[in-house]
């Protein structure tokens, strides 16, 4: 798929979002998941355009794919945590020790997540040069901007 085709696809997706917000929703409504999917696709396109070396390009794309999966897993995990805490709170007989044990478990998960993400970030720094990172950071697409807003609410 060419860059131009992807840009058009991205623009159409954003138009559909704007339409949905304006109240002209139809059966073709665009979900936040669709926006995010398009944003990651735009990002891959940009990486292909910016990195000339095929080996590093492949590594960068693989890393983006992993981050996309990690993001979905994190979102799911946070949903499960919220639900579990609501269940604990709703039970009048839950002890403080029950809560603390659960929070300790969550703390361990957060620490593990930080180590994993830091490792991937180090990998990212070795794959891309500062100029390449800067070039990618400067580009925007409407889907990417919308996805960032989604991601920031996780």
């Amino acid at each position, binding site marked *: 798929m060419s860059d131009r085709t992807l840009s058009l696809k991205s623009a159409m997706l954003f138009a559909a979002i704007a339409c949905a917000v304006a109240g002209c929703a139809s059966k073709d409504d665009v979900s936040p998941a669709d926006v995010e999917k398009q944003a990651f696709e735009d990002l891959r396109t940009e990486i292909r355009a910016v990195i000339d070396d095929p080996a590093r390009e492949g590594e960068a794309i693989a890393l983006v794919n992993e*981050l996309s999966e990690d993001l979905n897993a994190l979102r799911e995990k946070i949903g499960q945590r*919220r639900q579990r805490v609501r269940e604990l709170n709703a039970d009048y007989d839950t002890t403080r020790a029950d*809560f603390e044990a659960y929070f300790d478990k969550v703390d361990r998960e957060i620490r593990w997540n930080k180590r994993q*993400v830091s490792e991937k970030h180090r990998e990212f720094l070795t794959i891309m040069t*500062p100029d390449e990172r800067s070039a990618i950071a400067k580009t925007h697409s409407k889907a990417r901007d919308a996805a960032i807003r989604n991601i920031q609410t996780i």
Partner: protein
Amino acid sequence: MLIALFTIMILGGSSTATLAFIADTQDSVKIVMVKDDRQKEALSTLKAMKKRTNARNKHLKRASKGIYKVLRQDVINTADIDAIWTGYFAEIDQYDHDMLDLRWELKEHINREEWEEIFSGD
């Protein structure tokens, strides 16, 4: 997008304030409890929970901005990220501790039946 993604992933998401929802039950408390001193005390505790959550959210915003700023640099010092993260993680712990204190304070004002009705949707 990558920088925003790494920022939020490093922080483990921005919705780690898992007890924040309790503070949003003022309306239920007003419906379920009789308007008396106990209700007044319960609402006061919920207000304190809201205030604590707002302070925690401000901390998150500062940590998020700090990490984003570091990640945008050409030469990234990971020690700077670790320092911000450590401070943020300590705040998560303190927040959970403070919110549990306030939850137990809330329970002193609400009886079992009222509690079950207020949180029946959960």
